[in-house]
Each structure stands twice: as C-alpha cells, then as structure tokens.
C-alpha cells in the first residue's frame, strides 16, 4: 500500500489551514460593496399574511431595501420543490403544496421567511427587521403527524386533504398477513423515532452576488452539493440559467444532510442582490438554524414481527406515519420510503415484509435527510423489535439474531434491495468479544452490589450506501441521476489535480482522494491537489451525502486514473521504444518490466505537453475525465454493543462501554474511517439519550438554542472501541461500501436496548432522559 497509498493512516492534508484559522467558510467571504441580510420570519406557526408594511423599516439607518414575497413572485422566482416523486398506493402522485421562498399569503411554521432586509450591517438589518410590520391573521395549528391525519384538523395545503402527502406501500401485504396469522409467536411494538436538529457547527450562510456587467450571478453557499444547487436554482426556481450562475461551496463546517437542500435564503439573496445592486450576505444564527434547517426523523410506527416455532422470522409488518413538516423539502419524500422501507429486512432472512407509510404535513419545520436518513429509522425499529422478541421468547438476543442472519450472497430481500456481500456473524462475534459479553453477568452483579442497574444491549444494522444507480433511482421517482464525475489533470511538471463532484465538509477528501493517486502512480501525496465545490471548476457532480463519496466519487476518480494510466504508458513506451504492455508504474517512475529502463513520471508528463515526441496521432496533453454510475447500492453492516449503568435514584444513564464492529468493505484511510464512526456514534447516542426537537401545541419551537436542545458534549460520551472486519464490495472498483452514517444508524437501538435491559422495562422512548428512565424504572418495580 505504501506509506501514502490505499490503506495508509495518513494525516490529513487539509488540517493545517483549519488548525491555523485559515479555513475559508462562507461567512468568511467578503467582497467590495457587500451588505448584510436579515430575514423577517413568522412568529406564528400558521397564519394568513394580511399586509407587510416595511415603510418604517426602509427609513431606518443603514437600510438599503426591504423586499417581500409579492415582489419575489412578481419577478417570477419559482416555488421550492421536492425532487423525488412518490405515488400513493392508489396511483395518485404525492400532494406537493406550494413553498414560496418568501411567503406572501400564508405562513405555515414558526420561522417561515416573509421578507428580507438588506442593510450596511447585520445589527442595522436586525433593527430594521424588527420594524417591519406584518399583519397576521392566526390560523389553527397542528404539529403532531398522527393528529394531523384526523378529520377536522387544521389543513396546511389545499392540495393535501387531511394533510396526507402520500399513502405508500412496499412489499407483499397478503403474504405478510398470512405469516402473522400462522406464526408461533408475534412480537408487537410501537416505535417512536424522535425529531432531531442536525446542527452542523457552521450555521448556514450564503453570499449572493449579481454582476450587471455580465448579467451573471455568483452564489457562495454552505452546500454539500453545489452543482445540484445550481441545477435546481436554474431549472426550477428561475434564478438564472446555469451558464449565468456560479455556485461555490467553499470550506463547509459539517452538513449531516442539512446542507443538501436548497433553502429559501440562497435564492432570495441572489434575487435581492439583483434588486438592490449590492452583494448580499446572510448568515444564520443558531436560533434560525433550529427554526429553519431541515429536521430529521420524526416517525411513529406500529410493528408486528412473526416467528415460527424455531424462532425464525417469517413475516414483518410495519405501519409508519412520518412527519414531513410544513413543506416538502428537496429529498423529503425519499427518506421515509426508498431509504427506509427498503432496509426493513435488516441483516435477516425474512420471507415476507409489508410496509405502509403515510407522510403528513404539520405546522413544523420541513423534515428531510439527516445522517442515515431513513436507515436509522429502519434499524431502530428492527433492532428494538428483535430485542423485544428475544426477551419474549426467552432466548439470548445474540442467538435470535444468529438464527435469522442472511448467510449467502447475493441475497434478494422482499423489499427491493439485493445485498451483494457481507458476513454478519463476523461482526457480531467481533463485537461480543470486544465487549466481553460473557463477562457481563459478573459486572451486573457487581453493579447491583453498589445499588446500580447495569444493562447490555446490541444492534445489528445494515444500510444501503453508494447512492445510487441512476436508472434504478430514476425508476423509483428520483428527479436526478446519482452518478459521480471526476477529472484527473496531470500538469506538465507531473503534479496532479483531481477535480471531483463530491464535496468535503469534514470527510477529508483532500487526503483520501489524493491517496488513490499516490497509490496508483507512486507520486508524493503533496504533489496531488483535490479540487471540489465550485461549479466553474468542476463541470458537474452530485455531491456528498448517503456515504457516497468513497463508493461513487472515488470510483469515478479510479475510472479517470485508468485512462490517464493508459495514455501515460503509451507515452512512456514510445519514449523508451518498448511495448506498451511491458510498462509498469512504480515509485513515480514508468519502467519497462524486467529491465533497468525507466522514465520518471514528471518526464513523461513533460513529454505529453512538449509534444515533440509523441506516438503518431496522439493528442498532446494528459487530462482525462470520467463519469461513474454505480451498478448497485453498497451494504455496510455491523454490530454495536452498548453497556450502561443506570442510577435508579436519579434515572441517570452512564455509558460504561460502546463497541462498534463494522464491515465497510475496503478502507482507504483507517484513521478517517474511525473518525467517521466516532462522530456517527456521538450523534446516535445524542439521539438516544439527549436530543429532541419539541414544539408546543401552538407550534412554538421550545428547543431553539443550545440552552434547550441537548447536544452531546465531551462529558456525555465515553471513548469508543471501534474495529472493522471487511468483506469487499464486489460492485465497485475499490471494493468500498461507505462509512459516514453507520455510527448514527447502529447506535440508538444498542443504547436503548441496554437501558431497557438495565431497568427491566421495555416501554421507553428516545431521548431517554433521566426523568423518563427514572419513571420507567419505577414502573418496572
């Protein structure tokens, strides 16, 4: 592998700038003449806008202009859209209500944008925003998805009767019902998956610059996928044609899904820049982030799992209600459907599965993908059900999983997915060994002697990553293809630039993508630069989410490297008068195998550009591009074990150990992979123990700051024990499966299973706060 190649634990190339304060995030950008925006937002969860009066605000110090939704509409700026079409089981298309970037008739959640104030400073813009008088007529509010479906509830969009967006199903209802009817045992459980706020530490921001000399727009934005932003803003929102719109996502401070979507603010700032003639920068504060960043999860599900007399699962029936908030965000429809129900087979051989999913409008912030996106919901549901079943059946949770594991591949599940490779027992064994599962009874006895309740829980997760084969997702309703692009440019002196459509917002692409090149050509890592995040530099790309940068983005780089290598070998063979098939590339040289003849890499590159002595008919230069469309999803999987101690006096849960044994396929940089797992675990543990978005009955967000929303902090978490046991993915050239979301997917059920084991009461919802745990423990006594 070499010290810098594939598999090497290389320190990150990008670290120095972040460690010395030289990272460049969107809010760090300044351009001459730049002004600052503050949005006027609805304080009501549901109201008619009768009038927007900005006359006083416009006269305030420093104010350039105040613009509202009627002006935006008059200028032809389009509605925000959801880009994934789902049809209900009756064949009707999903009911997409209008989402205006600035509401001009109705506001539907607290934080809905109504007007933009542009001023010389943020403080002046904020003062003026408070002076904008919006006359609201309040309407009744509904925030709970189950309640919103009931007759007589407030209606959010005229298109969606009873607030139902779609009523969708997957799988074989009749076969599943038959299995349940014939079962030796049926485990029934209701599962709540709590609503979360993604909370990347960098709040969203955008800088819109309109240049009237060229009739051209530049948008700096905190995006995980700047090309998708450009495409959507051009094709649907009518901001500007693609060739007149440059989108730059510079350093981005975390995303976790929340920066996939195109939000009202970037559209409105670009439009406002044209209207006002000045560059307009907006930076969210944290309260706005809680109010308006797309939330995650918020499912309620009823589950029936049927077993035969040998404890083998013979059927799984799931009925889910998913809260999508006030509007359909960009990929919101895909999350509780094709990213969720397709994973309900888990690691198990289940002959019959049926899932019904109803998605619902409520007067809350839009809900979309958050780290894991649908797969954590599926895993939490399945793994809590498995644990519950094990307790009901009186078998060990490990044994119940073992007897149901899928053991031969490829495996076709009843819910679309075709698993290509895996070894679930290997992960289970590794995790149980690392956690000293067999020594638990003694540790529990010791805890009891101290008056503490000790519990242990596991979860065996699977996810679908490497999103995704374009034709497949197209057939399921996706509005885009999910390939990736790459371009490899060898400079005349042999240094190399790799342009990728993937986007790094913490994942370390500048290092891992360069490792691919160092590995292939034996050139130093320092001679390779990774270029991403700018639509003027990289032609097109689909961005980074769904653990796709390795499996899809890197595969595109490999394809481009193949082409570069082929041409480089032709040039070297010509220079050395050797046969092309005898050329090997090692340690930065192109050698004739079995001889001492060699051409240094840089000399070959120089020859490509001087073009004095190239093979007949060969074009000068050395630059190749590739698009890679995956053949299948990839299927990372693993086993997580959590051990806790609960203080029965206080309900406080202490995590004693957390073990993660993952199968990610081949790994480019183990250090970075471990870091991804650590971060995912922290978010999953946060969901299980601490985090929860809460609205009151009037739709006011009660958790809109770090004083109210419990983010995991260093003293809430243990150090983690992580390991990998890899079965390479057979469907992409590097054998990569992806690792970005696993931690967040697998950890919540392991933790809740441990707590319920400790307290002897299975009735517990996330977040398992001390109050809830205490009450559940009391109820069990």
């Amino acid at each position: 592998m070499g010290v810098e190649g594939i598999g090497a634990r290389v320190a990150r190339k990008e670290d120095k700038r972040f460690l010395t304060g030289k990272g460049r995030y969107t809010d760090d950008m300044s351009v001459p003449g730049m002004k600052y925006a503050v949005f006027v937002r609805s304080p009501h969860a549901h109201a008619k806008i009768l009038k927007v009066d900005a006359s006083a605000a416009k006269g305030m110090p420093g104010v350039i202009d105040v613009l509202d939704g009627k002006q935006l509409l008059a200028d032809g700026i389009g509605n925000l859209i959801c880009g994934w079409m789902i049809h209900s089981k009756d064949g009707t298309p999903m009911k997409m209500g209008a989402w205006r970037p600035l509401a001009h008739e109705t506001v539907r959640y607290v934080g809905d944008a109504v007007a933009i104030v542009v001023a010389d400073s943020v403080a002046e813009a904020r003062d003026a925003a408070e002076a904008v008088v919006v006359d609201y007529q309040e309407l009744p509010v509904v925030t709970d998805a189950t309640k919103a479906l009931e007759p007589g509830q407030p209606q959010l969009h005229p298109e969606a009767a009873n607030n139902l967006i779609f009523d969708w199903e997957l799988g074989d209802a009749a076969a599943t019902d038959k299995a349940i009817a014939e079962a030796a045992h049926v485990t029934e459980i209701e599962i709540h998956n709590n609503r979360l706020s993604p909370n990347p530490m960098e709040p969203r921001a955008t800088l819109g610059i309109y240049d009237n000399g060229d009739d051209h727009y530049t948008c700096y934005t905190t995006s995980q996928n700047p090309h998708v932003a450009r495409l959507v803003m051009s094709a649907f929102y009518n901001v500007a044609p693609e060739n007149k719109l440059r989108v730059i996502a510079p350093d981005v401070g975390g995303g976790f899904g929340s920066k996939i979507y195109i939000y009202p603010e970037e559209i409105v700032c670009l439009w406002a820049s044209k209207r006002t003639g000045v560059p307009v920068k907006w930076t969210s504060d944290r309260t706005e982030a809680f109010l308006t960043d797309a939330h995650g999860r918020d499912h309620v599900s009823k589950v029936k799992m049927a077993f035969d007399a040998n404890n083998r699962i013979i059927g799984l029936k799931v009925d889910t209600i998913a809260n999508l908030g006030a509007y359909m965000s960009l990929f919101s429809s895909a999350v509780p459907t094709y990213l969720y129900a397709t994973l309900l087979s888990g690691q198990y051989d289940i002959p019959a599965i049926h899932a019904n999913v109803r998605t619902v409008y409520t007067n809350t912030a839009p809900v979309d993908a958050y780290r894991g996106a649908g797969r954590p919901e599926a895993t939490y549901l399945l793994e809590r059900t498995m644990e519950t079943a094990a307790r009901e059946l009186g078998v060990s949770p490990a044994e119940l999983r073992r007897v149901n594991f899928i053991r031969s591949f490829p495996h076709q599940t009843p819910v679309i997915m075709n698993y290509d490779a895996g070894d679930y027992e290997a992960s289970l064994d590794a995790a149980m060994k690392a956690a000293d599962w067999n020594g638990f009874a003694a540790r529990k006895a010791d805890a009891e002697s101290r008056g503490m309740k000790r519990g242990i829980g596991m979860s065996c997760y699977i996810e679908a990553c490497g999103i995704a084969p374009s034709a497949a997702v197209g057939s399921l309703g996706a509005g885009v293809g999910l390939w990736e692009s790459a371009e490899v440019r060898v400079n005349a002196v042999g240094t190399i630039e790799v342009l990728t459509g993937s986007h790094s917002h913490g994942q370390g692409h500048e290092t891992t993508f360069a490792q691919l090149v160092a590995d292939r050509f034996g050139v130093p890592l320092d001679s390779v630069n990774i270029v991403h995040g700018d639509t003027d530099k990289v032609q097109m790309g689909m961005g980074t989410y769904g653990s796709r940068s390795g499996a899809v983005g890197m595969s595109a780089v490999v394809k481009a490297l193949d082409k570069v290598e082929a041409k480089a070998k032709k040039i070297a063979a010509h220079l050395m008068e050797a046969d092309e098939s005898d050329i090997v590339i090692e340690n930065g040289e192109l050698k004739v195998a079995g001889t001492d003849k060699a051409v240094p890499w840089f000399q070959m590159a120089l020859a490509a550009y001087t073009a004095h002595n190239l093979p007949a008919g060969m074009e000068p230069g050395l630059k190749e591009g590739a698009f890679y469309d995956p053949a299948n999803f990839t299927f990372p999987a693993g086993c997580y074990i959590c051990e806790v101690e609960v203080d029965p006096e206080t309900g406080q849960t202490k995590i004693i150990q957390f073990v993660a044994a993952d199968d990610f396929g081949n790994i480019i940089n183990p250090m970075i992979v471990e870091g991804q797992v650590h971060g995912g675990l922290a978010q999953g543990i946060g969901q299980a123990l601490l985090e929860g978005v809460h609205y009151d009955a009037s739709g006011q967000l009660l958790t809109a700051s770090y004083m109210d929303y419990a983010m995991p902090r260093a003293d809430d978490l243990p150090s983690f024990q992580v390991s990998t046991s890899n079965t390479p993915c057979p469907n992409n050239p590097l054998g990569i499966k992806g690792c970005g979301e696993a931690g967040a997917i697998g950890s919540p059920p392991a933790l809740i299973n441990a707590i319920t084991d400790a307290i002897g009461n299975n009735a517990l919802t996330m977040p398992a706060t001390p109050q809830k745990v205490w009450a559940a423990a009391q109820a069990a006594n």
Partner: protein
Amino acid sequence: MAKVTMTVNGRQVSGHCDDRTLLVQFIRENLGLTGTHVGCDTSQCGACVIHMDGKSVKSCSILAAQADGSTITTIEGLAADGELHPVQAAFKANHGLQCGFCTPGMVMTAVDMIRRHQGQLDEATVRAELEGNICRCTGYHNIVKAILAAAAEMSGARVAAE
C-alpha cells in the same frame, strides 16, 4: 461609537465600532481574522474562544469595548514562526478535527486547559473541561486523545527544560 485599542497576535490594533459590537465581531469584521468562529448565540458552543490576557475567553460574551487595552491571541497567532503549536500538531496527528469549524475554539480551549493544569490531565478532566466546546463531527474521541497527547508532550518538554 467606541474606539478600542488592543494588542492582537503581538500587533497593536485600534478601530472604531458600535458600542454593542461583540469582541468576536470586532476580530472577524474589523480585523479580518476569520479563524475565530461563531457557532451559536447563547455562548454555549465555544467556537469563538480566544485568549485574552492569557486566559481563554468566549469572544461572543464580551464587548469589544470591554477588551480595550487587553492582549489578545487568536488561532491565527498560535503557531510561532510557521511551526504548529504542540496542541495544533497533536490535533493533526490524532485526527482531532473533521470539518474544522469548532477547531479554533477547541485548540484555544485546550491550550489554556493544559496551562491551567500544568499538563497534568486525565481523560475525565479533559472531558469535563470541554463542557463549553461543542463538536458535531468527531464525537470528541480524537479531540480528547489529542489534548492528552499534547499535554503529555508539553509537560514532558517542560520537565526536560527544567
């Protein structure tokens, strides 16, 4: 308007700002030192930690005018002569950062933490001391590791020097 003068990263600077200007805004907007970040509005996240007269301070919780006459070090002033500070080097060696947004505040907090404890830190202490700094990427695992490694190295270096 307030006129403020302070020494920032070894250089005397002065400027005029609104009385209500926070120190972090002065550092970012007036001085153009954008390494200090703003991650929240309730002084919880710690992305804005700087050193003021040798102590770590959340620069969002103090007015620029209150810092008049003080000596400030920001993340940009930590690496001497282009060499990473041992805490910065330990964060790199231990993969203690991912997106980099919380990193400047983490590093400034860690430097002060190691100073106050004279390098004598254990995991529980580091975790407790990081209560005012939020990271969403790393799960803190490698941040804790990096701080312990830096503390060991710096106290070892101090022992050697003595």
